[in-house]
């Protein structure tokens, strides 16, 4: 094109506006849930809202550096060493880290504590994008596919060993990225089927779960038979494959109770049991969800108004400014506010997907999908948890939950993408 564009024309303002709005909503909710009843100012640096504002300032400074100072090529160059460094940090924290709320994933540096797993989302995304640029999934062969799987699996396994379930689920979001880059959709379907069978085996009698498996396999068989298979040899192959799948499905059903009892930790079991109503637990795990749903449900259509929430500001909902921040929004801004937040997230994710798709750089595109997947998984799991659709999993709501390191990490992740997009648009 004809030279450089003006700087303000190169920025994807849609994403930036969503980012600002989400932060402001979060900041006000933090204030409302933690210190409003004390009569402190929203800018009081001794209070959570003040601290969050400070972290927002730091995030903006970092964002500006990323957007206007650092060349975006740097990110791809440093992606392998950065990935390695973060994996080492994950290992270190597994050995030396402090245990907070049952998971050993925190570094304690003087007054500041942070989780390397926050960083690992960024570095995994960068390296995955880097690798996807040079590997075409469909033509890569098993070696290339193995490398891609390892990039995601290594940090995921270490984080699993740290006992941080939430982040693992976020890593599952990378499946969507791989799908976008050519991974067969059957993998996602297969994964979905396994999850479905696991849940069925938990909450329904054995025969129901087994027949579900049979129906799924039958549907698969008929679908392929009608659409793909033509020759006789292929039909036999398909039949064998279906029988194999059926056996695998039965195995999933039968091994569920073993996995449930032996592999999962007791608190994880509890949370799943409460989610599916297998167990009533009004004072334990169920308490959180029960209180959270009462708070959100009490908001009604338009909520009770800013700082007028009673459930969340009076300490009935635990973790009300971090993992359960959505309760405050639900209670004080009602259904309208919740809808707004979900819309903002959806628009942001959609804009990111759109920007990624329109990029000519495979690296930018793949990275953009990683960012979108992370935000999507966080939003779904966190909001799902507060309204009883997901088990209680402690992960933050991006840009909204209280927590400096989380806000900073998400901001950096987002601004790296914005910077890549901006530099591309400057010249094209």
């Amino acid at each position: 094109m004809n030279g450089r564009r003006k700087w303000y024309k190169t920025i994807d303002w849609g994403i930036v506006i969503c980012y600002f709005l989400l932060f402001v909503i979060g900041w006000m909710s933090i204030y409302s849930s933690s210190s409003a009843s004390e009569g402190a100012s929203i800018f009081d640096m001794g209070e959570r809202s003040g601290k969050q504002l400070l972290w927002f300032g730091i995030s903006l400074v970092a964002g500006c550096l990323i957007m206007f100072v650092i060349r975006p090529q740097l990110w791809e160059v440093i992606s392998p060493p950065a990935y390695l460094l973060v994996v080492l940090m994950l290992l270190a924290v597994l050995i030396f880290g402090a245990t907070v709320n049952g998971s050993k994933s925190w570094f304690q540096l003087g007054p500041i504590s942070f989780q390397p797993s926050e960083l690992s989302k960024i570095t995994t995304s960068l390296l995955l994008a880097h690798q996807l640029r040079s590997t075409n999934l469909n033509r890569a062969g098993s070696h290339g596919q193995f490398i891609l799987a390892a990039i995601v699996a290594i940090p995921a396994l270490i984080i699993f060993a740290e006992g941080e379930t939430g982040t693992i689920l976020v890593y599952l979001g990378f499946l969507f990225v791989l799908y976008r880059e050519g991974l067969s959709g059957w993998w996602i379907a297969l994964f979905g089927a396994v999850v479905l069978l696991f849940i069925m085996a938990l909450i329904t009698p054995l025969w129901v779960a087994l027949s579900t498996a049979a129906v799924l396999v039958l549907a698969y068989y008929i679908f392929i038979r009608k659409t793909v298979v033509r020759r006789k040899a292929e039909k036999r192959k398909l039949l064998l494959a279906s029988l194999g799948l059926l056996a695998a499905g039965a195995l999933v059903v039968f091994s569920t109770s073993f996995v449930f009892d032996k592999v999962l930790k007791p608190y994880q079991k509890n949370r799943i049991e409460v989610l599916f109503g297998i167990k009533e637990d009004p004072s334990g795990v169920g308490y959180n969800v029960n209180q959270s749903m009462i708070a959100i449900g009490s908001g009604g259509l338009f909520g009770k108004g800013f700082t007028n929430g009673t459930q969340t500001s009076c300490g009935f909902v635990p973790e009300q400014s971090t993992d359960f921040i959505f309760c405050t929004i639900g209670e004080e801004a009602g259904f309208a506010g919740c809808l707004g937040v979900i819309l903002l997230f959806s628009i942001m994710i959609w804009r990111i997907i759109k920007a990624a798709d329109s990029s000519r750089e495979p690296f930018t595109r793949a990275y953009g999908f990683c960012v979108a997947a992370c935000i999507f998984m966080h939003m779904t799991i966190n909001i799902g948890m507060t309204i009883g659709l997901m088990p209680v999993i402690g992960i933050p709501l991006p840009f909204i939950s209280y927590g400096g390191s989380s806000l900073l990490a998400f901001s950096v992740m987002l601004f790296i993408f914005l910077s890549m997009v901006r530099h591309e648009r400057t010249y094209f």
Partner: protein
Amino acid sequence: MESGRSSKLVIGLCIVSAVLVCKLFYIQIVNKKYKTDALNNSMVYETIYPPRGFIYDRNGEILVDNSVMYDIMVTPREVQPFDTLALAALLDMDPQEIRDRMQEYRTYRTKIGWRTLVFRKQLSGEKYLRFAEVEYNFPGFAGRQRTRRHYPFNAGGNLLGYMSEVDGDYISRHPEYKAGDFVGKTGLEEANEAKLRGEKGYHIYLRDSRNRVLDRYEGGALDKPAVPGEDVYTTIDAHLQQFGQGLMDHKRGSIIAIEPSTGEILALVSSPGIDVDILADFSSHYDSLSRDPGKPMFNRAIQASYPPGSVFKLVNGLVGLQEGVLTPNMKYPCHDGYNYTKNLKLGCHHHRSPINFYEAVMMSCNSYFCYVLKSILENKRYANVNESFARWEEYVRSFGFGSPLGCDLPGELGGNVPKAERYNKIYGKGHWRFETVVSLSIGQGELGVTPLQIANLGATIANRGWYITPHIIRDTAERYNTPHYTEVSPEQFENVVQGMWMAVNKPVEYGATASLAAVKGLEICGKTGTAENPHGADHSVFICFAPRENPEIAVAAYVENAGFGATWACPIASLMVEKYLNGEISPSREWLEKQVREANLLNVPKKPKKKG
């Protein structure tokens, strides 16, 4: 294809968002359940503490029940500026402590939220009333009723045991307890904790955001009532116990009274003991008690091991009779003692000589029982002293010596009965003989027994050859109903009983050692003991039972460092018998009771003297 995949992903995003929105719509707009809860309610669990079980004595007298106390609770969010000094005075607290506490609440206010915390524990009813009158001056503070142990009788402090609040360590070992709970730490309270404590329950209330309790949750359908603790019925006779404690004032030692036919413990006194007033508020006295050189928390009756002294002669006599190496009319000489080597003599007090078995028991002659043990250990029936000693040990253990009897109080000691191997180790096999262990003849040397075991010996003799494991809880368990037979046959016991009867009921001039114990009409049979020990003056020991036929009570008294058995332990035990059987002390013996009560035997100097 790829951008088609992007569209699919965007569609997926829309679906997931729609699901979230639908669920939100359902709980925020549609569902009435959350509409009801839109009153901003929340569940509050209020613990219901069950009343702890009572402890009764054998006649239905209450030894321990509960009295009402108050904890002062505080809800920090509701507290308004108040007069710290006034509150400190009302609650007996240090004003600085109150200021520190309020500062702490301020620091952790987000953690505390609307919760209510304990501010001051266990305020008496009287003090609480003073506070309640002006409670309106202190918004945020309120009383909560709790119970505390109450003791209508000053009887059996050590025996009953104390309660204390559970600490973190205890909770980690017993997860069924929560902070603020109390648990029995010693004695009966500890041994019967599971029975006495009952089961906590709770009310669930709905509370609004300002902590106002609105209503019962689901009409109380999910409430759990507290299950009161079970009562415990002991075999103790409260009046006898109290009487015994009075007798042991300013003395170190113990008294145990047992009903021989059932093994029920009628009284178990350990002195110095703990007053029940102190038990009720144990935590504030804990330091001074644990520093007390008299070790009041130590239950001497079951946890102290002493040499038995002369009362053990009864056991040796019985073994001799059973083995056939001794007959009641066999006479042995005694000239102020027994020369067991050329130069070594085991001394005895001066008395006539020779004497038979009955007189030997009556006079507690040392020499006689040296001859008895000598004939037991040098019995030709056995190949060597090792074998005869092993047989002797078997007999002794069949009386319940050498291992815990298995009574139902926690912490019972087993004492010590030496084995032949022990001497083999010290002297070499074949290099020791009767003379080596001569002091066992008179209950000294390597023997250790608890006062409970001594009392059990009294019960065994009273029963003519069997005992039931002494116990303090009325229990139908087989363990406390099965007689244990000694290896000595019943008819031999009559000889010992005759000697013990003479010791009490014959005149002093005739040589009786325990005539101070004689009570007209009670037919007390007894035996004195004077146990030498390395800690000071001799321990004064006495065992007795009464009446001679169909005995109803057996008593052992053990007074540490008090001198002759006949001087202190003997009157104490006989007063116990008289009190139990007659209900009161006869006027002719009131002087004795007075003398015993007033005696301070904590610092008796050690005198050089002969053994008796």
